[in-house]
């Protein structure tokens, strides 16, 4: 039966109905209710066979179709409202909705071709630096490193020979020391990192310090900085144990 359509993709009864009408090349304003009801019910059966969830909305539409079909059979006085009108309105609305979805996509695609002053600010929320910024910086640095390395044949070998020389604790200490005097530019700091392992460890240390509330992340002119918090619970704790 060629009017049976791919069933999975329907977003609701109106979607299914509209597709069936299109398949039959029917005019929305002049629906052949008995034909379309038959198609619709067959489709529901198919959906059940295919184990697709036939929700209450689909059943509701089926009963509406049957109701209209029944009303159409009763001869009525001229000029009386066509029983199909309600459904036609629904279908037209739905059709408009479907078209609008496509239209909005086109408009947005087209809108991206226009550049204007400060468009960036409209879209991107201003923020004081977040973990995402660190991740982005990390990725940037990493890709840069990776690109350079690709060209050096011995680097890969050396990388494999490198053992895990770094621990998160060491890195944390190192960062803490640096932070005693000044803020740390994340990009600069990572650019001194040599290997993948070191980078992972350094990043882990950084996250750990954030978690321990030892450092704050600061975003200035697209650069990520780390600064030491004024007083931190960790520091107090350490002082206590030291003393």
């Amino acid at each position: 039966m060629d009017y049976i359509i791919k069933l999975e993709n329907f977003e609701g009864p109106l979607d299914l109905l509209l597709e069936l009408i299109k398949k039959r090349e029917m005019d929305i304003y002049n629906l052949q209710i008995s034909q379309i009801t038959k198609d619709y019910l067959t489709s529901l059966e198919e959906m059940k066979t295919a184990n697709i969830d036939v929700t209450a909305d689909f059943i509701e539409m089926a009963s509406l179709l049957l109701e209209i079909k029944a009303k159409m059979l009763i001869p009525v006085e001229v000029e009386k409202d066509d029983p199909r009108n309600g459904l036609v309105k629904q279908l037209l609305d739905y059709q408009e909705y479907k078209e609008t979805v496509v239209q909005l996509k086109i408009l947005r695609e087209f809108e991206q071709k226009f550049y204007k002053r400060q468009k960036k600010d409209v879209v991107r929320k201003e923020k004081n630096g977040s973990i995402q910024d660190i991740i982005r910086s990390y990725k940037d640095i990493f890709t840069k490193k990776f690109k350079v390395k690709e060209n050096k044949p011995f680097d890969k070998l050396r990388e494999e020979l490198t053992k895990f020389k770094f621990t998160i604790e060491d890195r944390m200490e190192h960062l803490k020391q640096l932070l005693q005097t000044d803020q740390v530019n994340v990009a600069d700091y990572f650019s001194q990192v040599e290997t993948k392992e070191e980078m992972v460890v350094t990043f882990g240390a950084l996250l750990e310090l954030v978690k321990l509330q030892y450092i704050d992340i600061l975003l200035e002119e697209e650069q990520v900085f780390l600064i030491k918090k004024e007083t931190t619970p960790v520091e107090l704790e350490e002082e206590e144990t030291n003393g």
Partner: protein
Amino acid sequence: MDKKHIEALLFVAKEPLKIEDIVKIVKETDESMDETIVLRWMFELQNEYAERGIHIRQVAGGFEMVTADECFDTIEKLLPKQYDRLSRSAFETLAAIVVKGPAIRATISKFRGVKNPDDAIQKLLERNLIKHTEEGYVTTDVFLKEFGINDLKELKELKKELELLDKNPESSEEVEEVEETKETEEKQNEHHE
């Protein structure tokens, strides 16, 4: 005062400027300014810019300077695309609100064919593309700006144009009667049963 002041305003503005806002600004330096003059200058500028790399266009009820769309390929090399992607559910929700706005949750739910439309609604609310009113959700000026629409009526007009281009030949006799008689005559035979 002359129209170069308007031009300068458009150049520095970060948001589309409404005519009444421009009038308010220019009146502070020149009391004789009014809407008719500003509007005339605006249209003159618009014409002068028509062939340039920067155009003046109307969006969300205001005027703004944008780069010409044919220059996109070139600009893109310097400034990559900056807009976030919207999900399918976001587009669907927006479409339901555009068609039926103000649209309540149930309406959006019905059009989209999903039981729970809240996630998509929430995301659009956060991005200020829609807002909540007593009658339901409506689209915002941010939506108009991000989609380059001047006002929603314009969107419907645009759709009519698209429909005319892509007219279904099987459309009803009622509609055809309103249109050109020639076309109707041609198709009448097809419709006769």
